[in-house]
């Protein structure tokens, strides 16, 4: 009797790990626009797959295309708003997402698209306690690889050092003669490219539809609030934790699955407003 639920539980826990992986990728993105760019990434990947007939080409190209678009948005729209109220970029990207959701419906149709995982990853592997789709293992691996690369980039390179210093004290970094505008442009491009990647990866699991970005962006902001702002480790742990919580709630109390992340968030806000790993001073 008991071993069947246990197996299902393990399976659900493992599915949660994948969900957590997507959450982590998104949560690192950190801004309204990234939700929108995830959708765009998914759609661009779909079109590229149609053109090149290759998932792998799309996997590499879509984040680049979307990242390049992110460069343009930063350079020609968002940069005009620096020095104004911090709400203004948020408002602008809200208008942009409204326009782009409709634009995506015009270009790719109103009905969601289904994307098949590539042939090499379409099978399932027996993990002992369950049969798990290889594609989902692949998602875990890519997420882990990207995170390690990002961590190395931020901690070990010169530009990474400037980014970390700039986010602490922009004025001081400028005073040292560093052009932060170019650095922010790069950060923005990388963030959006990662959102594009999250979109490509999520496509074969969730399908592609115009409104997917809003759902994802809410989830990822909840994770950033729970994990604590400005903490890469916080985002990773909170993302994985939330993936698990959602997955296990789906198993035990399906009706609560959509609510549970908000409940967790409310509890964290009550007990630790700066987030699990946030520094109190950064609780902006």
């Amino acid at each position, binding site marked *: 009797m008991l071993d069947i639920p246990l197996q299902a539980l393990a399976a659900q826990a493992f599915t949660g790990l994948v969900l957590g992986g997507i959450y982590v990728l998104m949560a690192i993105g950190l*801004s*309204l626009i990234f939700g929108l760019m995830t959708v765009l990434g998914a759609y661009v990947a779909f079109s590229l797959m149609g053109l090149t007939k290759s998932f792998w080409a799309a996997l590499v190209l879509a984040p680049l295309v979307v990242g390049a678009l992110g460069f343009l948005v930063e350079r020609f*729209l968002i940069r*005009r*708003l620096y020095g*104004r*109220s*911090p*709400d*203004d970029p*948020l*408002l*602008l990207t*809200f*208008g*942009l*997402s*409204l*326009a*782009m*959701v*409709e*634009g995506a*419906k*015009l270009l790719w149709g109103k009905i969601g698209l289904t994307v098949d995982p590539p042939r090499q990853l379409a099978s399932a592997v027996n993990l002992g306690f369950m049969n798990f789709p290889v594609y989902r293992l692949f998602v875990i691996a890519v997420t882990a690889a990207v995170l390690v690369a990002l961590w190395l980039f931020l901690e070990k390179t010169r530009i990474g050092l400037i980014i970390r210093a700039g986010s602490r004290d922009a004025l001081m970094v400028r005073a040292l003669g560093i052009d932060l505008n170019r650095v922010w442009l790069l950060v923005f491009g990388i963030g959006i490219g990662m959102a594009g990647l999250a979109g490509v990866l999520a496509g074969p699991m969730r399908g592609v539809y115009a409104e997917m970005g*809003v759902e994802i*962006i*809410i989830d990822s*902001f*909840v994770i*950033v*609030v729970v994990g604590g*702002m400005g903490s890469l480790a916080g985002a990773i742990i909170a993302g994985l934790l939330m993936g698990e919580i959602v997955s296990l709630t789906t198993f035990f109390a399906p*009706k609560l699955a*959509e*609510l549970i992340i*908000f409940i967790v*968030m*409310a509890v964290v*806000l*009550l007990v630790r*407003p700066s987030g699990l790993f946030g520094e109190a001073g950064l*609780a*902006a």
Partner: protein
Amino acid sequence: MISGALRPITAWVSAHPVASFIVFFAAFPFLVPYQSLATQVLIFGLFALGFNLLYGYTGLLSFGHAAYYGLGAYGAGIALAKLKLTSLWLALGIGLGAAVIGGALIGFFCLRRRGIYFAMLTLAFAQMLYFIAFHASDLTGGDDGLRGIPVHALGLPGGSVSLRTPLAFYFFAYVLVVLAVAALKRILDSPFGAVLQAIRENSDRAVACGYDINRIKLLSFVFSALFAGLAGALDALRLTVVPVDSLYWTTSGQVVIMTLLGGAGTFFGPFVGAATFLILADRLSLFIEAWPLVIGVIFMAFVLFLPRGIWGTLTARGVER
């Protein structure tokens, strides 16, 4: 310039906002193509008025105002359709109560963070209410919306008035919105209103002056939810149905767009914006299916080039940003 020619008019209107409101909106239903559009402008203007108190005057950007609008709508709708109450006043009161309690609770949580996190938290809690309404279909009708809200006559001291014609309903809403506009004016002119604007301009300074800004922000949040809830309750009576979308983020987005088009932090901006948005949407949807695309682009242009909005630009009194 146009704004120069209009200056005497806009100056008088700005000096006598409540009187201007009473005069203009008494004539308004006879100036628009059909009367139900006038009622919509009134109700969404009130919704935007509530949003504007929080964003335009207190400087707190909420992306989840659908929550209070929806609570007001479901509160009044459930009172009439499920609890079988026959008093419209009681139903409105229940809607307002739901919005105020919701606003106080959600505001308490959201005000623990600032800036973009505050905005995202308001959005997250509004989506939470949306999911609850979606699944609690016994009470809310779920995906189909809450249907079968009866149209009762409005009980008054001297008898009762039927609200079945669009014009009768318009003037019922008109009286309530006038009261709300007068109340907002009273709030803004009070010392409390001055502190709200001080928080918007420089919250650190307001703290240094000894104000408990968290309590004041929460009060502003609750007042804002109250106005939004009244708008929602009125809309439930107007439509006799509460679509589940009234809690969805698109509703929150609409009120943001309306307020910014009209002019955040200006007294009439919300009504100017609601009228602009609704008339634009009404006309555009005749020609293009993807009309939100056009609205999105117009909205972006306003954020970039006309941050004071229409009314703020005409009166040159909008928020300096």
